């Protein structure tokens, strides 16, 4: 009987350590996932000037669309913080979506090897951003659930863990770029 209280204390301390460590791990995974998004966004910023230059010849009179892509790209490069980046990248996704939708109507673009290779790279980058965001949001949800639910929230508040923000860009962007087919 005299071991009961010390035993419970040891168990509580072990539980605290375990929970604290899982919180640290979850926070680390959120950070990693965010840096992965960052890598892919940079990749997209680097690819866009090349893409715009290579389609300018064929799509010269779509000037408005091309300018919009460049403008959105430049403001996305300068954005900071989850919200601001989300908004700027959303604008860029919309502009690119319009460009791709229009490019479907220029079969001569598809014949140019350089353009089709670039389009594959840009398209893949779009996918990667989408998948990286999906993965980041999964990790954030996991961390936030731990921070907010009993009993791990006790450890979280003592350790100063704060909930992370979801990265939501393409939810609205996807709605503005539905599939277009010309009949």
């Amino acid at each position, binding site marked *: 009987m005299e071991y009961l209280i010390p035993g419970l204390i040891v168990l509580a301390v072990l539980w605290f350590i375990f929970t604290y460590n899982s919180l640290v791990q979850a926070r680390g995974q959120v950070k990693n996932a965010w840096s992965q998004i960052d890598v892919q966004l940079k990749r997209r910023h680097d690819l866009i000037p090349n893409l715009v230059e290579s389609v300018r010849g064929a799509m010269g009179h779509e000037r408005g669309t091309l300018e919009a892509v460049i403008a959105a790209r430049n403001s996305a490069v300068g954005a900071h913080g989850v919200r601001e980046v989300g908004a700027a990248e959303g604008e860029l996704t919309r502009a690119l979506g*319009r460009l791709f939708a229009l490019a479907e109507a220029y079969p001569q673009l598809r014949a140019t090897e350089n353009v089709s290779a670039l389009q*594959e790279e840009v398209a*893949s980058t779009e996918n990667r951003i989408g*998948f990286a965001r*999906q993965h980041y949001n*999964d990790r954030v949800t996991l961390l936030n659930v731990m921070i907010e639910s009993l009993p791990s929230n006790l450890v979280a508040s003592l350790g100063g863990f704060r909930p992370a923000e979801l990265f939501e860009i*393409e939810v609205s962007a996807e709605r503005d770029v539905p*599939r*277009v087919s010309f009949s």
Partner: protein
Amino acid sequence: MHEAIARNRFRSVVLVALLGGLLGMALFALAEAGEPGAGAVGLLAGFGITGIGGAVTWLAGDRALLWSVRARRIGHADAPVLHNVVEEMAIAAGLPLPAIYLLDDPGPNAFATGRSPATASIAVTSGLLACLDRDELQGVVAHEMGHIQNRDILFMTIASVMVGAIDVLADVAARVARHRGRVRARGRDRGGAVVLIIVAAIVAFVAPLCARLLYLGASREREYLADATGAFLTRNPDGLANALERISAAPVHASVNSATAALCIVNPRQMTGSDSWLSTHPATERRVEILRRMAGATYQAYEDAVRAATGKSVVPRGALGLAPSPAPTATLARGATPERAAAYHAARDGTRRRAGYRTVRCRCDAQIQVPADRAAGSLRCPRCAVALSSG
């Protein structure tokens, strides 16, 4: 998915222990029959050989498998689309980029190997690249990424090497039994010969059977679960379903060895026929049927579809709660044939229809698909910028 990971680790250990026990027993009997009292040496030798064999398999089993099918490692410039798709799926799964290998084989197929996500490899045949579009390829790669994520690759690699080793051992045991049994039967020591024959019979017939049963026991569940992961990661069950149909309908099948065949996304040596206790994979039609039946790209939807089709449960409970965020924009490969483009759009439209999209037609003849929860009145035609009434 930690349940699946733990299960695969446990089974790998059991398989190696089974082989060690068998080899120890065989060598014990051999040594004892040759020199009474020397059995312990044989036993230790058996464990030692298994230990070394296990370590070699652990360290180099994946490379041995890749070497045995003449796979060659490729970079981004060799196959940009494949490389991009693998990178996309690694990001979606939150895993490091696996090494990518190409097999010069006209039969479409793919497999994954390695002992952990950090050392994993994905191999696809040139036939696969030739006959699948980007979405289908993405489905196949996501299925393989599922095997990597659940550590199926560890068990499957160890198992295929071990099953091969046990087969060789069984063959040797059968020869020894025939030869030594004859020699001994003429001599004085009849008891030793009987023991030897019994042990050899166990090694020759029971061991390969046990190894196969252990391997087959869960291999179909593993394939179902990898299909579920494939659908979840891509958020597009139709891509994988189309790919499975194309692979099984291909005029030529991949000509890989039997150790590798069991690892492939569709077993090229069991292309036809329905489920039997000897099949490593569920029947392809069954897998396609389940994927097509999914109401959304969640593990829960896959579990419901499997249960409706087979009555079985394949998804671990820990995964059922993973709710996906909306699908990222998938794309059609540039330069795709009109037929391929039509198939792509049909699959895409199906997915969107299930998600409740409506179709709106602009005055300029553009057809626009709109999500159900999209507010009316805020829609502009992306072609001519005219405001649309979404009625």
